[in-house]
């Protein structure tokens, strides 16, 4: 806060220099330069590492690459090719299945969150930590461990199934199962992050509402559906958006759990995996850029759709 003018005028012998400096500093403080200066580091990083590569990718999507760089403009050829590519169409279906399975983590997370945040719950931080560990573990390490778990001959998954008399499939090399296995791991890894966000949502619900509901004779189940769920819809909305975006960008789990020579790959790979394969295995970086742009557009559309639909189910205070 600058000193009020009265205070200044009451001071003895205000030097003109000091007055000017003060005026200058006030001018500077009101200057629009300040916010720009504070935003600069973030904008610079965003610009260099996100925006500019994004613009470049858009440009590359209209070109064809030589083996070692050197681009030729080819117009919309890459996009035309994409429309006819059965791999791309198939990968949408795979991504959709993956996303739906991963989204199961949201209802499960909601139930778990409301249980963990129940008043009087013991070892709350322990549970939170346990559920959060998968999220902070390196995806590559997670994928390797699950790859061993799902091993057809020596994996724990099939050993457990054998205990109840089921002979399990070769999870990671048999088409529908490979996608299911990868999705299960995706769901498991998404759980921790969702749980933390949802727990915060649960904590924000005023306790009085539960007390009131209890006095009205609502069972815990009824309380969950009539108090917890409606009041958590803003958190649920956010979690859904984040989960869909992340599920759409799934790459590392498939890459490590299945590898690049897997017969189940066509029925498992998502859009980003095809992007990788085109860019770094087939070295067709122009086409890969077009696939990247497609993924961006699809994710953008899906997010927009969710924002439209939210009016029907999200309750804000």
């Amino acid at each position, binding site marked *: 806060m600058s000193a009020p003018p009265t205070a200044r005028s009451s001071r003895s012998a205000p030097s003109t220099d000091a007055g000017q400096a003060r005026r200058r500093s006030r001018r500077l403080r009101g200057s629009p330069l300040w916010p720009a200066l504070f935003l600069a580091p973030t904008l610079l990083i965003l610009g260099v590492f996100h925006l500019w590569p994004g613009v470049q990718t858009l440009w590359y999507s209209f070109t064809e690459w030589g083996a070692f*760089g*050197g681009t030729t403009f080819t117009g919309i050829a890459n996009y035309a090719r994409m429309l006819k590519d059965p791999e791309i169409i198939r990968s949408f279906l795979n991504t959709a299945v993956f996303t739906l399975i991963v989204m199961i983590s949201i209802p499960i997370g909601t139930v778990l969150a409301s249980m963990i945040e129940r008043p009087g719950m013991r070892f709350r931080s322990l549970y939170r930590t346990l559920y959060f560990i998968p999220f902070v573990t390196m995806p590559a390490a997670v994928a390797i461990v699950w790859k061993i778990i*799902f091993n057809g*001959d020596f994996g724990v998954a099939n050993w457990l199934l054998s205990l109840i008399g089921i002979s399990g499939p*070769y999870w990671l090399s048999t088409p529908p199962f490979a996608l299911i296995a990868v999705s299960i791991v995706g769901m498991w890894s998404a759980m921790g992050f969702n749980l933390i966000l949802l727990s915060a949502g649960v904590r924000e619900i005023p306790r009085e509402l539960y007390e009131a509901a209890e006095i009205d004779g609502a069972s815990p189940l009824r309380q969950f559906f009539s108090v917890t769920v409606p009041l958590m819809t803003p958190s649920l909305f956010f979690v859904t958006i984040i989960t869909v975006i992340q599920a759409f960008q799934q790459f590392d789990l498939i890459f490590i759990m299945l590898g690049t*020579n897997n017969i189940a790959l066509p029925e498992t790979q998502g859009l980003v995996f095809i992007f990788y394969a085109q860019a*770094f295995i087939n070295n067709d970086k122009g086409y890969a850029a077009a696939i990247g742009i497609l993924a961006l557009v699809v994710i953008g559309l899906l997010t927009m759709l969710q924002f439209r639909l939210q009016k029907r189910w999200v309750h804000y205070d």
Partner: protein
Amino acid sequence: MRSLTRRSLLGLTTAAAVSGLAACGGSSSTPGGSDTTYSAAPEDLTAELRYAIWDKAQEPAMQKIVDGFTTKFPNITVSIDVSEFGSYWTKIQTEASSDSLPDVFWMNPPNFQLYAQNEILMPLTSMVDGGALAKENYTPAVWDLYRLDDVQYGVPKDNDAMAIWFNKKLLKEYGVDEPAEGWTWEDLRASAEAVVSGSGGDVYGFSGPVNSAGNHSWYNSVHQAGGYILNEDHTACGYDQPGTVEGVTFWRDLLADGLSPSIKQLTDTSFDDWFSSGKLAMAAGGTWQTQPFLEALGDDLGVISWAAGSAGNQVCVSGLSNVMPAVSKNPQASMAFLEYLGGEEAAIAQAESGVVIPAFNGAADPFYDSIETLDLRVFEDAIAQGFSNPATKNTKEWQSVELEMLLPVFTGEAEVESTCEELFTTINNLLAKE
């Protein structure tokens, strides 16, 4: 576009050469020439080199070579940069696109032509002319693998050859005689069957990397049955040959009859893991597996030449080379290092490590004798009689189609004959486009 790139590349090469030479009080360079000229490096040459390789198992031997080199040139430091095989090539390709390649790096036959034709690699003509690199020192097959249009680009490093590894203990347990030289496909199948039936299906008889690497598996049986993958001048493929069909059928039958783990099982657990863990009695492998298998099985490990088909028991012979980029920051030091890598001292260091067979003539004895319990001489015969690894400008492209189409044959979902016919047309079309 291309000529522009080439000209700017040349400009950079020359500039780098001039500055590199100027730094050491240099001699002459050839401005506008097609490569930087070799000249013997002075002992006080100062440089920091980066040497990129992809095999962790060879790192100690490479370090030993680097130590030998830096003793001769005390002001040069060499850092070894090891990557996993798959990411190695992604990295090299990216670095090549941005002129930031390592000073010296490993090259393999499937990738060589792509890099040489795009002028990524430094032609070593001046080293050959200057007497720093002599053809007669190396296995001819490996020397020729790194030549394009009569220009040498690679300094031969090692020889790969294939053989069959076996687990003595498992064979004994199921009453199967150890394979003897001169054995045939029929003997191999009979031994594999005996292991499978003897163990009640708990242990598999014979397998290989049939789900990932043709040159380590069916390329061998194709040649052993009189077929081929590519013709002599590498312009057409041989999938129309009866021998090729027979060679593919050999593996299909092994898989179909349950003598090998299925494709799905091999995808989950690779053949070398099946072998190392004592669940597979015999495995088609190569020289580079000597140490890992020895560590896993110890004295129970045995090795024998490939079983013979109707046309012999020849196997795919290949080898790596050391190369340097056309755009080099330290051309003189890099050439000095290449010269050392191609010399006898470096070859002996490799052989003594027992990991690979050096491509330098007469230096391989320490490798063959490195393990008392194993007759590694089988690889010497294999190298002498082998055929060279099929490679073209865009090897990766047709090989990925080849594997994609053959996998359903190996799982039993597709017919051998019709798939081979289809492959014949598909691969020939791809080769025509190269």
